[in-house]
């Protein structure tokens, strides 16, 4: 469960990215965060993953107040999440396989079981045949799917994706949304930000709309 109450985020330069945002996403729910560029979607997701802290108000994830966690607890909070970044943050000096392996190495997985899981995740996003490739040789859509494979490999209870379909053509975008939907169907809480209204058409999910840092619907 993710819960925001009266959250404000003000940057040192005076810019208010979020203003009085309150909402709750229940466990197992799938929600889309929609809004124009600069509306505060990314900031909202970053507050959940404790990449940034709110100025006032509280962000609760699985019963923990994220803003009050000490530095040592943050890595363990983040292991609850599968994060898909807008800029993907792939490691280009490692193979596709090693990129997906990283979260399992971090949580101390036994290597044989880890290899099985990595292949399962790559299979899920349709990249199994490219496990030895370098990320740089993949197309944009494939890189996006690689990022998703890395997010889901540790079987997180919460999947958070920041603009996962930006820069992709419609066909890829639909594929990727379908992957997220399949996770939602097996009980994973899914939170996706997007500015792409067209995608929302065939997805009857809950939609949170942000405008200039305020939740409007």
């Amino acid at each position, binding site marked *: 469960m993710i819960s925001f109450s009266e959250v404000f985020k003000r940057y040192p330069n005076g810019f208010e990215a979020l203003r009085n945002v309150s909402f709750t996403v229940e466990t197992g729910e799938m929600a889309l965060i929609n809004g124009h560029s600069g509306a505060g979607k990314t900031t909202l997701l970053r507050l959940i*993953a404790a990449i940034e802290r709110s100025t006032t108000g509280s962000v609760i994830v699985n019963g923990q107040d994220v803003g009050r966690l000490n530095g040592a607890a943050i890595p363990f909070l983040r292991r609850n999440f599968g*994060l898909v970044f807008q800029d993907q*943050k792939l490691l280009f000096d490692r193979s596709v396989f090693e990129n997906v392996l990283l979260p399992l190495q*971090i*949580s101390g997985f036994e290597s044989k079981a880890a290899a099985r899981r990595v292949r399962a995740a790559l299979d899920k996003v349709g990249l199994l045949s490219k496990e030895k490739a370098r990320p740089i040789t993949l197309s944009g859509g494939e890189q996006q799917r690689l990022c998703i494979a*890395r997010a889901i490999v540790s079987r997180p209870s919460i999947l958070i994706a920041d603009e996962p379909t930006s820069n992709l053509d419609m066909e890829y975008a639909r594929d990727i949304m379908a992957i997220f939907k399949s996770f939602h169907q097996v009980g994973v809480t899914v939170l996706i930000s997007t500015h792409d209204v067209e995608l929302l058409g065939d997805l009857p999910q809950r939609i949170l709309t942000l405008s200039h840092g305020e939740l409007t619907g």
Partner: protein
Amino acid sequence: MNTWFSYHWQAMVLAFKRLALIPFSTLLTLGVIGIAFSLPAGIYVFLENVETLSGQFSSGPQLSLFLKLNTTQSEAGKIESFLKENPHVASFRFIPKASALEQFKESPGLAGVMDGLEGNPLPDAFVVTARDVSAETLKTLSRALAELHQVEHVQLDSAWMQRLAALLKLGRLAAWMLSVLLSLLVIAVVFNTIRLQILTMRDEIEVAKLIGATNGFIRRPFLYFGTIQGLVGGIVAWLIISLGIHLTGEPVKHLMQLYETDFRLYHLSMGDSLIMFLFSAGLGWLGAWLSVVSHLMKIEPR
């Protein structure tokens, strides 16, 4: 336990991979660390050798007691009984003039000189070993012996030993000071290589933090990186000293043959080598740790 082992195994493998990725800079760093260690360790080996060598030339604090040429046997017997009772005397040996002459004749070069002489010019002598080396005891003893009847001359054989011992002590102090300075150098070298590593791996560190890596997880490969550099640097130093011994071995042997002494240079003992390796690995670790603490923690995901 298993998880702990696999964390460390992964970190070590990663550290080796990172070292192998930059072979040239790794070799340079190892060279610098190796040379830095070989200086004080080499001096230490040199001093140890000199000390062993000086031990072969003279055994302990000795005094030579030369009697007057006209000394009778009974007078020599009195001196002998005095030496037996003196508490400062550990042992003594009587060398009658006849056997002294024999010894001289056996010495190379001197035989001819002796043959040319009429009669025996050498006196009876006692070689006295004192109970302890302190300058005070030796002085008291030599004064007491000089006052004995029929004693012509007392010679303190260990005077040069004491000077040498003082010199060696000074040399050791210099080696220690050099070790401290060069240890700081090694720490600085590792500190800097780790700093460069951290800068080039900024992205990787950021991503790892974002997907839940603890600081310990990120720190570990860097600590292994530094420790491995330190350890291998220590081994390089050992090899440099080995090379030095190998190169000087023959000339030293030749020189020692000229002095009719059987002496061979020896290397650091097993224990000393192990201590050096542990020490160098420890310094590598320390340099890495300082670097990680001051640079790694500044990297937070953006």
